[in-house]
């Protein structure tokens, strides 16, 4: 009774999920390959892309068959290294009595790197679905899963969302193996660990947990792994989707993971002691844990002189504030506190608003709405047309709206600066968050003036302070203030001063590099 009540309270139900391969565990291979192929094709609903090829091994009467999905394997390899070998070079696979020996086929004949014995249907189906080729031989209750995968996909290109002026120009693609190669190439450390997990009851997507053993804290890795393995979902397509299921605050407006398409960013994150995740079929990786100052960092910060990088980074923080607050401050100042402004400026603003039929708040909301439409249209349309939309929307409609007296020129300036500032935020999700919270600030400003803005900021501060990402406060290292870690937060100190890894990540190996002896001038980049 008590357990029933507990179950009801927790809202959990015992369910048997359909479409998984778990139930196939009970079925084992039969010695008859006809039965095996028929059953496999039945399980996979006789889809047209599943190819079977039955043949006889050498000059014997022993029949064999291979089953694979044509789009996921390299058919030339299958033909040359599996089928051809078995048909023509079968003498190698006979034992002394002239019978076919599965071990000999596996060890002496198949010149492919990854060959595994299998006997249950769940493994076989999952292997075929992942791009393996299944070989079964008459008379054996075991088969071989042979990896001859060849996924078709685009080649490594330039990052679209995170372009860099000086840094590497490579971005992840949709193929996991390529992405892993991009990371391996950058860290030649045997401690670089890739843990592969299958995720999704139906999709069985390959998701890889990446970290550098000996740098990332063990508890952090365990925590992330446990949360990852606890996910029960039928299908996932991106690592971001996975992260949403792992976080304590999935409804947070602010991003609690860093999504990146840049391998160099993932490498830098792992080198600090963070953990990354990448999933098959997604052209981006996520890094965990994340804090607000991390999201304000850009790859270019580390390719520039530290003074230039600091100024640029601080500009970004100012841009974040402008993006959130500027329309609200304009409305509050003109509506509640015009006395703060010089008389001539007040007159100028008043003159520019003459003839505008709407109050400033409505004007601002109208412009915001137009801006959102423009941004959304720009993203959805093909790139060439998207630029046209920007020109038509930004210049033509803006100019026409001012001339028609629907909005004042000063409001167009305010909203334009706000929009530009939001584009200066390096993380897209953070930029999106700033766009969303701008509206409540406008409403607070029109209701309570600067008091409303102040209360909104304090609420935002409390909200940001309450966010945690795998136990890490979202505002770390600004608060709780850590002087050493703050060298790479609001500012970007010279690299030689940052010889230790961030303390807040509790790295197992704290030393990043040994500072040059007697170094006292920040002439390093």
């Amino acid at each position: 009774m008590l357990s029933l009540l507990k179950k009801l309270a927790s809202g959990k139900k015992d369910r048997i999920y359909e479409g998984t391969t778990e139930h196939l565990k009970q079925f084992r291979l039969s010695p008859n390959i006809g039965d095996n192929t028929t059953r496999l094709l039945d399980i996979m609903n006789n889809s047209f892309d599943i190819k079977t090829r039955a043949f006889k091994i050498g000059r014997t009467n022993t029949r064999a068959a291979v089953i694979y999905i044509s789009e996921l394997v390299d058919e030339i390899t299958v033909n040359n290294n599996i089928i051809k070998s078995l048909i023509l070079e079968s003498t190698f696979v006979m034992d002394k009595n002239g019978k076919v020996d599965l071990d000999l086929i596996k060890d002496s004949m198949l010149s492919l790197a990854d060959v595994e014995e299998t006997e249950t249907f769940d493994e076989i189906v999952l292997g075929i679905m992942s791009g393996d080729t299944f070989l079964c031989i008459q008379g054996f209750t075991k088969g071989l899963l042979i990896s001859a995968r060849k996924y078709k996909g685009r080649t490594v290109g330039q990052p679209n969302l995170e372009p860099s002026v000086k840094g590497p120009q490579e971005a992840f693609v949709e193929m996991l193996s390529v992405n892993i190669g991009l990371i391996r190439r950058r860290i030649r450390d045997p401690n670089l660990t890739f843990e592969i997990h299958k995720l999704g009851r139906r999709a069985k997507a390959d998701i890889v947990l990446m970290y550098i053993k000996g740098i990332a804290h063990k508890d952090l890795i365990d925590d992330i792994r446990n949360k990852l393995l606890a996910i029960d979902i039928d299908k996932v397509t991106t690592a971001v989707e996975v992260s949403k299921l792992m976080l304590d605050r999935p409804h947070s407006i602010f991003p609690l993971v860093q999504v990146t398409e840049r391998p160099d960013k993932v490498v830098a994150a792992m080198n600090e002691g963070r953990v990354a995740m990448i999933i098959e079929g997604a052209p981006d990786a996520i890094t965990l844990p994340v804090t607000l100052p991390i999201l304000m960092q850009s790859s270019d910060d580390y390719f520039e002189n530290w003074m230039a990088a600091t100024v640029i980074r601080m500009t970004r923080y100012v841009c974040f504030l402008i993006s959130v607050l500027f329309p609200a401050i304009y409305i509050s100042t003109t509506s509640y506190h015009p006395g703060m402004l010089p008389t001539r400026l007040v007159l100028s603003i008043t003159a520019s608003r003459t003839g505008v039929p709407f109050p400033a708040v409505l004007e601002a909301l109208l412009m915001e709405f137009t801006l959102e439409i423009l941004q959304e249209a720009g993203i959805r349309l093909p790139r060439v047309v998207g630029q046209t939309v920007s020109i038509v929307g930004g210049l033509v409609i803006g100019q026409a709206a001012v001339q028609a007296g629907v909005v004042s020129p000063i409001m167009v300036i305010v909203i334009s600066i706000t929009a530009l500032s939001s584009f200066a935020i390096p993380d897209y999700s953070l930029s999106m968050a700033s766009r969303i919270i701008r509206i409540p600030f406008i409403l607070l400003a029109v209701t309570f003036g600067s008091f409303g803005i102040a209360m909104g900021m304090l609420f935002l501060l409390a909200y940001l302070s309450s966010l945690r990402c795998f136990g890490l406060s979202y505002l770390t290292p600004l608060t709780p203030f850590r002087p050493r870690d703050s060298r790479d937060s609001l500012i970007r100190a010279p690299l030689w001063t940052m010889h230790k890894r961030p303390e807040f990540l509790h790295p197992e190996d704290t030393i990043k590099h040994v500072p040059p002896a007697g170094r006292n001038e920040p002439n390093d980049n």
Partner: protein
Amino acid sequence: MITERLSKVQVMTITVGAIFGVDILMVQHYMVKFARQDGWISLAIGGLLSIGFAFVYYLLAILHPDLDLPEIMLKLCGPFLGRLLLFPIALYAVLYAGLSARIFAQALKMFLLDRTPIYAIIGLMLVVVAYSVYKGIYVIGSISDVIFPICVFTIVSMLLMSFQQMDLDRLQPVLFENTDNVVRGIFPGFRHFLGFEIIAYVYCHTYRAKGTYKWFSAGLLIPIIFYVMLTVVSIGVFSVGSLKGLIFPTLTLSKSIEFPATFLERLESFTAVVWIALVFESLILFFYMSVRDFSVLLGISRRYDKYMTFALIAAAYIVSLLEPHGIQVLDYFLTLLSAYTLYTLIIIPPLTGYALLKRRRSKQ
């Protein structure tokens, strides 16, 4: 993965935040009322005395590193007497929060929001306070961390910009036939530094690292320096006579700073944001104290004490709107501060002494 604790720096920022409150807007007015141009001396002496009393609380806290003040009181005095002694302290925190919210709302109405009703100003403020307190002490610590540097920067800038308007002659004569008034002003000066008792509520959440007392001392000294400087500058700018007529001289001072022919001629709206932040921080800390007090009083465990926030916010809202006359609220506020100061002066030192004695006995 990480055990969350308050850092040493946060001990300082929280202490500063608890001491700074609505008093920062009017401390000069009351000190001048008592000791005229020597009000700053009374304030300085009162402040230094408050450091001594603050360390009594600190001692009590370090003797019970896993408990906060209400729990300590119950442990030392037993469940009945402990609750009896705790009740006035719990009541004080709610009344303080309600009255200071009202006073601040009046100040805002007077200087910034002349058409906005007071109940709306207090309502919005208390909603945000409730959210912050509900999120717990570590969120409060983070808020203090962020507010602290902004406030220090703003107050220092305001003081520096006010220097040019100062007339040092207005501070003279120093202590001339005014010693009695200076002495009489020490107690009123002392009560403006209330809030240091927060240490007895947060010490159990700190890392308890060596040197915490240094940061706590810094947290006590910073408000003394700023209050004294504000009083000195205000006397120099406004004179004693004018200051007696200004209820919120700090706001008037920030309004008096002008930047002709620049983008913004006056900065009072921006400095108001800082005063709002300071009062807000003080409110959340006092609410936190009251939440803890009432939770222990009613036997609610730490896990559920955050829900007490909503009941207390409603109580504080009612308290803040009970009195229709603004000036009367100021009188109530000062009476409350005096009563609480006397009460704690009577209760806390003997309690600490008893705790010390108990510790010594247990060691023997």
